[in-house]
């Protein structure tokens, strides 16, 4: 099973029926898989904080949500994470492409990579880092953890996890 399909099936197996996405090259395959899955309502967002608002609504409306985004957007979502997701104790699995790490071809991506883990730590957001594809074994447990604790959790997936950028 491809890694994209595996992730999608894990989301479905944990009852996640609503996923919003803001694309990244690394995430193209899993976004396609999610879009095709009949048990997931997929709504692309224009911005990541918009997506978190959607997830809050979906959760309050009775669905289990998740967001798929790039780490570079973390900075613009901090207020939404603090005053919406965390303040109202909402679970939110965040599958995040960890741009700017080893194998990164675009230099400006490195700047937010330097801040990513520090920001997540400052926000007290449980953070997991997938570096090898075998790390995906932990995904179901991480999803359980998010919905048990009613917290946002971050799953950082780096270039090694996705197999590079297709040109290396």
């Amino acid at each position, binding site marked *: 099973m491809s890694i994209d399909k595996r992730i999608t099936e894990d989301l479905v197996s944990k009852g996640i029926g609503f996923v919003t*996405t803001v*694309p*990244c*090259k690394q*995430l*193209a395959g899993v*976004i396609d898989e999610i879009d095709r899955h009949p048990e997931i309502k997929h*709504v*692309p*967002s*224009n*911005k990541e904080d918009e997506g978190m608002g959607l997830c809050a609504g979906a959760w309050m409306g009775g669905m289990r949500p998740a967001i798929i985004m790039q780490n*570079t957007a973390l900075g613009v979502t901090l207020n939404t994470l603090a005053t919406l997701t965390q303040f109202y104790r909402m679970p939110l699995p965040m599958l995040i492409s960890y741009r700017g790490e080893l194998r990164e*071809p*675009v*230099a*400006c991506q490195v*700047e937010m990579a330097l801040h990513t883990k520090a920001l997540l730590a400052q926000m007290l957001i449980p953070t997991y880092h997938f570096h090898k594809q075998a790390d995906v074994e932990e995904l179901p447990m991480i999803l359980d953890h998010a919905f048990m604790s009613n917290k946002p959790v971050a799953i950082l997936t780096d270039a090694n996890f996705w197999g590079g950028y297709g040109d290396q």
Partner: protein
Amino acid sequence: MTIPRDKALTALIPHVTRGDIVVAVYQTCFDWLALNPRDLNYVAVGAMGQASSHGLGLTLANPDRRVFVLDGDGSLLMNLGSLVTIAGAGASNLYHFVFANRVYEVNGLQPLPGREALDFAGLARAAGYAGAEAFSDLNDFEDNLDAILDRPGPQLAELQIVPGAPYPQRYDYIHSSEARETFRRALNG
């Protein structure tokens, strides 16, 4: 009907005079740099969606120059409020071209949300732009360019585009201090 991006950019070249500032982002930027390298090309790729705001800042700081913003549709959707800010600022020297291919091209070709109904020219008019038009035919765009640029801004032209000839993604130049220094020297020299 659609317009190859490089053809739309080539049509713009004779209308860009020596003192004009051009702000371009993502693939449109790479194509523009290859087709029309010039010192007053302003390059900034990183914080997605900021082209229109960069353009307004440059416009306000340089009221005697025209500023051309060559924006992406996915980019503008991340900063849609800037349409209202630009209109409210009365940026009469700003000309905003939205290259609308309805996908996130550099991120994996995912479709834009609501792409079937998206009407950037309509959004710009509603935000208070002095004028806004949409083009899906190259000849039509070429025939109207003089008239658009004769009118005071802010003006928006939405171009229904498809990728044209491929040009290299020169991130090394865009990220270089040389690019910024060249721009500053040309602006102040």
